[in-house]
């Protein structure tokens, strides 16, 4: 059953790639604009091999992007959870920040980039700041929603049994809101990844997958551009599988908050 499920899509993709390869080979399409699969692979390998004794250019690009995502998303997660808990526990804070988040959330990171370039310059400071902001919003929003939806009986029961109101936070609020928080963290990290790649287009200095794709498109090295897109898919899937799922297993599933 599982094998059968993959046969059709793989056939479809394979025939698409094959047709593309043929079309480029016989010059039905311009191969320098529509680099065929074979030259995508060749271009990527070349990037990997070119300065290999010292380092792989390809892996350095990927590493630079990943590092930025980890730093930015971690900052965004801590700030977002803190803000979400504040908004969830205090009506006043919620009333104040809810409109601000509503209005600022739809502004794409790439549009914020020029502002931060003026303030912080090109490179990591700008990319990480904009990435952290991107992660912050969904996490704060979902944490607030999670904390607000907690059954007040639970809090009362805990208080009655002598838990101080500060101890309620890690013992009652966070575990009960964990499902929401996790959903927010997933959204936030995905958004951070997208934003970091986008901001690398305009603000990166020399490294990063976004920078690699953008640089290649300016010189119309289409093989690297398409290869970059392929890498974006693979890296994202790997990140989702390895990171988020293991975090989820360690927290909400173990506490039995969602069915495993």
């Amino acid at each position, binding site marked *: 059953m599982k094998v059968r*499920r*993959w046969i*059709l*899509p793989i056939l*479809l*993709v394979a025939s698409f790639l094959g047709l593309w390869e043929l079309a480029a080979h016989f010059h039905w399409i311009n191969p320098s*604009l*529509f680099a065929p699969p074979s030259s995508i692979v060749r271009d990527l390998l070349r990037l990997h091999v070119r300065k290999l004794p010292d380092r792989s250019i390809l892996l350095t690009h990927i590493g630079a992007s990943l590092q930025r995502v980890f730093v930015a998303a971690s900052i965004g997660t801590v700030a977002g959870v803190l803000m979400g808990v504040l908004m969830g526990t205090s009506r006043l804070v919620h*009333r*104040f*920040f809810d*409109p*601000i988040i*509503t*209005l*600022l959330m*739809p*502004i*794409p990171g*790439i*549009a*914020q980039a*020029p*502002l931060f*370039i*003026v*303030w912080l310059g090109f490179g990591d400071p700008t990319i990480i700041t904009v990435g952290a902001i991107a992660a912050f919003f969904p996490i704060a929003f979902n944490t607030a929603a999670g904390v607000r939806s907690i059954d007040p009986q639970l809090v009362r029961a805990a208080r009655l049994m002598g838990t101080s109101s500060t101890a309620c936070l890690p013992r009652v609020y966070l575990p009960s809101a964990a499902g929401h928080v996790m959903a927010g963290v997933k959204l936030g990290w995905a958004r951070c*990844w*997208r934003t970091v*790649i*986008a901001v690398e*287009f*305009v603000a990166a200095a020399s490294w990063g997958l*976004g920078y690699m*794709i*953008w640089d*290649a*498109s300016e010189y*119309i090295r*289409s093989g690297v*551009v*398409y290869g*970059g*897109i392929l890498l*974006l*898919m693979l890296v*994202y*899937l790997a990140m*989702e599988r390895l990171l988020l799922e293991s975090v989820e297993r360690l927290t909400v599933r173990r506490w039995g908050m969602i069915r495993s």
Partner: protein
Amino acid sequence: MITRRTVAERLPDRWRTGLVSVIQFLLPFLVIGLAWELAVRSGLITSSSLPAPSTILAKVWALSVREGVLWRHLTRSLYRLSVGYALAMGSGLLFGTLLAMNRILREMFSPILSLLISVPTIAWVPVFLITMGLGDRTVIAAVFLGGFFAITYNTIRGIEMVDVSRIRAARTMGARGLHLFASVLLPGSSVSVITGLRLGIGYSWRALVGGEMLSAMVQWGIGKMIYQARFWNDVTVMFVGLITIGVTGFLLDRLLIRWLERVTIERWGMVAER
């Protein structure tokens, strides 16, 4: 004070709660704006790269009313948005319906769809720049792609949730093709479809701004306005652009999608009226 209160009391209930929520919405911005203004006026912030709100508002006035450039940027952006979004809506609904109705098509395309969704829309822009040129077409393609996946995905989910016996009943009574779609599938899946349309316009709007920034031949557009301001380090114009993006995105969601909800799923009684 007393007269004002009686005036307020004479307003219909709906207006009054509306007014209260508008004030509640605007209040935080007023507070922050005032604090920021005071910080600049009192010399706490002296940086030229953080203008006072009054300077930004004056710039909004200058660009919109006196010079009118802001409108030109905005209308150009909205034109691209409507073309790209209309394409995304049409093809997303169609493709989503096809995939939901046909098992083989779904098995073929759904893994590919979920792979493609993982790529940020903006990353396709370099591909479009290479294949479609540096102008409007690239931006519209980005807008299209931004909306397309969200609409397709949610249409599939919506139609899968439609009760199969209803589809069978409609089929036995002779409904086919477009007729079946318009009278059974679309209404039945509308809650999820509208969620897709709402997500889609948000993604489209964001993709639009990014696409405008990256396409070299594009001269007008709200994203371009911000991008051009970079060359003069004109932070005030950047703020004007960001505010315009935030407010327009918000209004698109509240006015357009709310209107759509009101004339469809709320009228059909599928969700509680708000």
